[in-house]
């Protein structure tokens, strides 16, 4: 298990979701991915994408400065 980060700032949905999807495809089950975004839509879309594809959101989306930060654990 390892920790990873992804910069999806200044991208409009669904691009952050696509970037997350493509990154997760390279990761192993149990890996942690932290995503930095600016489009408020990710607060809906990344959790929805996680739910339908079997990944787990760790905690709530966090807002810091102008960033929206989401952390997820890759599912099986």
């Amino acid at each position: 298990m390892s920790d990873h980060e992804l910069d999806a700032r200044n991208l409009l949905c669904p691009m952050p979701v696509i970037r997350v999807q493509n990154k997760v495809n390279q990761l192993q089950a149990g890996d942690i991915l932290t995503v930095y975004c600016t489009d408020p839509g990710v607060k809906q879309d990344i959790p929805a994408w996680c739910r339908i594809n079997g990944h787990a959101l760790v905690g709530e989306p966090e807002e810091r400065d102008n960033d929206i930060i989401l952390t997820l654990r890759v599912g099986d």
Partner: protein
Amino acid sequence: MTKQYKAVSLISGGLDSMLATQLVLAQGIHVEGINFFTGFCVEGHTHAIRKHDKNKVKRNNALWVAEQLGIKLHIIDIVEEYKNVVLNPKHGYGQHVNPCLDCKIFMVGKAKAWMEAQGFDFIITGEVIGQRPMSQLAKRMPIVAAESGADDRLLRPLCAQNLAPTLPEREGWIDRAQLKDFSGRSRKPQMALAKSFAIDDYAQPAGGCCFLTDKNYATKLQDLWQARKKRDYELDDIMLLKVGRHLRPTENFKLIIGREEGENNYLSGYRKQFTSMRVLDHEGPLALVDGTPTAEELHLAARITARFSQGRDAQNVEVGITTDSGSAHTLNVQPLPADELPKAWYV
């Protein structure tokens, strides 16, 4: 043990693909969704940049539909490959710059490649005969199946009974009798079917799900091609066409002016790619300068930007200008009076 057949469904986020998928799921088929991002997609979030749309649900409808159906959804970035569809459509454009038939052929072709790579058996679309003028005419539906290469592995559950039986129907993977015979532009059969599935919340985009069918957007795209003397685009170009007021006072440059705080924030993400300007001594929008204005034209751009600020009635205002490389200077300008801003500048 009987084989579990698997289908990939083109999910747009609208009602038709949702119903088509549900009809197939109801027959015990394993379905996964595929959604293509072309860059021209009308996304709730694009609208949600603007304040007046903040009451709208900020959701991606394709993801939402997949969740309602309980299926996986794969979102595929086809921005680069899609350029050829937009720029060189074999079957031409619809009313604006919408290459609907080529688009459908391309997407079904991509779905076929995905189906083969993933070991799936057939493809589902929400197409209905006669519903859309360009891509869903009865005579054109066989073109989609043939030119995409999907042939008889392309199932249109909502109008299947009006078409020749496809492989999944002939082989008995799916019961044709449980599919539908919808045709035409009426939405009543879909609404009744939605009710029978207890689906009461779904997206109903007035102009479809693609900006290329939008007259104003098409005008901006054609202006971009004309100004650059080249029919081409990058993703940033076509995203920016969705945001702000676009004014082209001369051939040399265009101004993109944020209309609201959300748009200003979005445009500010492009300050390293464009010269940007903002009135410093009054509240006002962020403006991006696309092109290569002369010093005189840059002065005009500053006056226009000032026109859209709270300082529009002031004698003079300070406009801060930052180039894409980060060097900054200010111009002291008289805001352009309303009667000196011709409507023809609006793209």
